[in-house]
């Protein structure tokens, strides 16, 4: 099956079996290694990407469903000012995720801030529950997301 879609702002066309997982397509055909394989069950969130403006676990997305869709991965998102708000905030607050969850936590933060520019702690915790994590604290992450929101609000204000 030939599947045209937009990947990180570029029009692409791939030949693939329709039920292949989007995660594997991104990693194997495009060398985009930011989304990580975890549970392959839609639970852990390590493989999150943005599909048509929604955060989705790419392990649960069969490639046929991206037909003419828009996919943004961390590799595309990192080129934006929205990313830099998050990056600066996370570094300033010493949010230090591991490679498995880091990109997913960034994309989750972005989508949360799009919906709630000034999120409450409860909203942040609920959003971050999409990414399972056994190994770091939530308090620092909440501070990082709040700071990212502040950066973004400041930038949109300045603009």
């Amino acid at each position, binding site marked *: 099956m030939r599947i045209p879609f937009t990947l990180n702002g570029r029009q692409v066309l791939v030949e693939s079996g329709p039920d292949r997982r989007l995660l594997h397509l991104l990693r194997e055909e495009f*060398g*985009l*290694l*930011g*989304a*990580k*394989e*975890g*549970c*392959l*069950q839609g*639970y*852990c969130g*390590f493989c999150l990407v943005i599909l048509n403006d929604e955060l989705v676990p790419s392990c649960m997305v069969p490639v046929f469903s991206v037909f003419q869709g828009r996919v943004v*991965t*961390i*590799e595309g998102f*990192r080129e934006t000012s929205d*990313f830099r708000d*998050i*990056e600066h905030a*996370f*570094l300033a607050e*010493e*949010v*230090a*995720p*591991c*490679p*498995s*969850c*880091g*990109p997913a936590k*960034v994309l989750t933060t972005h989508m949360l801030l799009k919906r709630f520019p000034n999120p409450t*702690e*409860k909203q*942040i*915790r*609920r959003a*971050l*529950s999409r990414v*399972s*994590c*056994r*190994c*770091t*604290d*939530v*308090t*620092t*992450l909440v501070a990082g997301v709040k700071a990212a929101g502040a950066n973004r609000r400041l930038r949109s204000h300045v603009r």
Partner: protein
Amino acid sequence: MNREAEEVRSILQGRGLRIGDIPDREACFVTVVRSPVSRGVIEGIGMPELPPRVRALTAADIPGTKELTVFGVSVPILAEGRVRYKGEPVLLLAGPDETELEELAEKVAITCREEEPFLNFTDPAEEQIACSRTVNRGKVDEAMAGAARRVTGEYATGTQEHYTPETQAVYARWNRDRTRLTLLSPSSWPFHVHETLANCLRLPRKALAVESAPAPETCLDGKLWYSSLVAAHAGLAAAALGKNIKIRYSREEDFFFSPKRSPAHLRYTAGLDATGRLQAMDVQILVNTGAYPVFARETLDRAAAAALGGYHCPAVRVRASAVTTNLPPLGPFAGMGSAMSLFAMELFADKLRKETDRDPVSWKKENLASPRRRLIIGETPRSSLPDPALLDLAHRMSDFNRKHAAFELARKRGAEKDEAPESLRGIGLALGSQVSGFFGAGEASLGTTVRVSLDMDGKARICSSAVPGSHALHRIWRRLAGESLGIPPEEIEIAGADTSTGPDTGPAVFSRNITIVTRTMQDACELIKKKRFRSPLPLTAAKRYRLPRSAGWNDQEFTGGGCAATAWAAAVVEVRVDPLTFLPEIAGVWLAVDAGTVLDEKEARRAMETGISQAFGWALFERMTFRRGRVPRDQFLGYRLPPARDLPNPEIAFLEAGGKRPVKGIGELAMNSLPAAFVGALSQAVGVDIRNIPVSLREEDLTPEAAR
């Protein structure tokens, strides 16, 4: 931007590589074919026809030692003759195409003469006992007979999956002329991987190197020794095919077959005087180690040392046994040994204080050990004793006494009126401890060494094989080494863990990195500082860790310091429980911590909070049982770590450290205190003494009948 920040930045940008991500189009893969039965003798292996690019490897193909050894306990690299658990590795298929290997593996038929497996550990047969630890203090039977009151209690703690972010993985890479094999391993003990490979492949030590993973990941004990087994499989395949090898377990494979936390069963009997003081204690501990009792001695020592928690009792008998079963290896996990005992002892303490109608704080204080009223391990440095101020601090932070009394009253009134309130409330308080480093003689046997050098330009380099669990360790080292050597932290380079360049620092476990290895690194810096007055640059100093004299350990008697340092915490948990669904909500968590000297407060808080999440996972969220020798599939699909939305925002206070106090490991403190505080709170809320974790929320388990 410093090096750690650069690393984090690349992770945020999605450039952080895990071992499984390292690109190598030429690499081959390995699929493990596993035992279909829990216990039995292999009678034959039926093989499909293999294409020439695929190799099958069994124990017979291992050129050297066929087992890996951890502190005297052996585990087969591939089972030969006998299999001891469902899923035990028997055969490897190695080749260039992962899908093809999986299809071929489906066609391999391992036939076994099955034997009745040992699946139960609470009533073990003699042949199941791998080792035991017995501790005797005073005349227990006499003291028990003379006690004003005798009380018994029985407790159980469950198993838990490590659920490491990256599953078990390894990448074995040949150099150009295939004379040297380098393994990138997530192991928290690189020298153990090195040793295992050298013995198994019968290669000279110099023909091997083991490097740590490209980016740090919290060191969870699932990668303590099992990574050596996975590395041995990769090494065998690399040697057989002459190719680079990548192994990465799927989450499913990891979940079903890699080691998990040991479950335990504990029985307590206490003799009390009329005021509720402990006069005699008899404790039996059974620990399920699965098929191989790896780290069983350490677990038992820790369990026995923590059997009475922070309390003093003049007559004590502890019998702790490691029980083997035909289940996957069950062993170390944060709080190993200590957490199970502390959970049971703190719940038992609550039962004891109720028997004598005392409030929790005063009972604990009255029974607390002190320089004259010793802990179970005998004379202990004052800095390792529980400080009663911890209980005061925890009580003040949480308003414990008032809430406890108010919730008790509300519960009694509710029961009298027989009407359900909007929510049931409860609060629990528990004391816990963590010993840093290996227990007793274990630490001395490791020979932990750190090397520091200072070059002509005034730049320093620290070499070790310590695998950092976070970016913070190196940041702390840079600061401390900079202070010691009088140079800016940016001028200090920290070499990654690499067995070909760094000295052996032992495993990253029991908070050893921040206590023992950091201390050794500081000592090496001090040595350089001294040398600097006499000798020209460049200078190099290697320092080997020595246990403090006060820690002198008598293994026979089970007395002495036991470890490098002991940290203590008093934890309070408050819960609200829905009276219809029994779903608990964690309303508050407070922790008063004696961490000795705190090197980096932000990092210490972070470590505590990470521990809190793991502790609630163990006590409430994470459910894992075995059915017919393996974890059922529905548990894989339903296994959940505590989500951020259900975790509390804890209040953590560190006890002010007076004078020169040791740095104490605290990563396991929450695990060793919170579960009992949580279950205590839940028990108060529902009016039933809960005794097992993970807690069951089924109504039938939360009735007074179930508690009997």
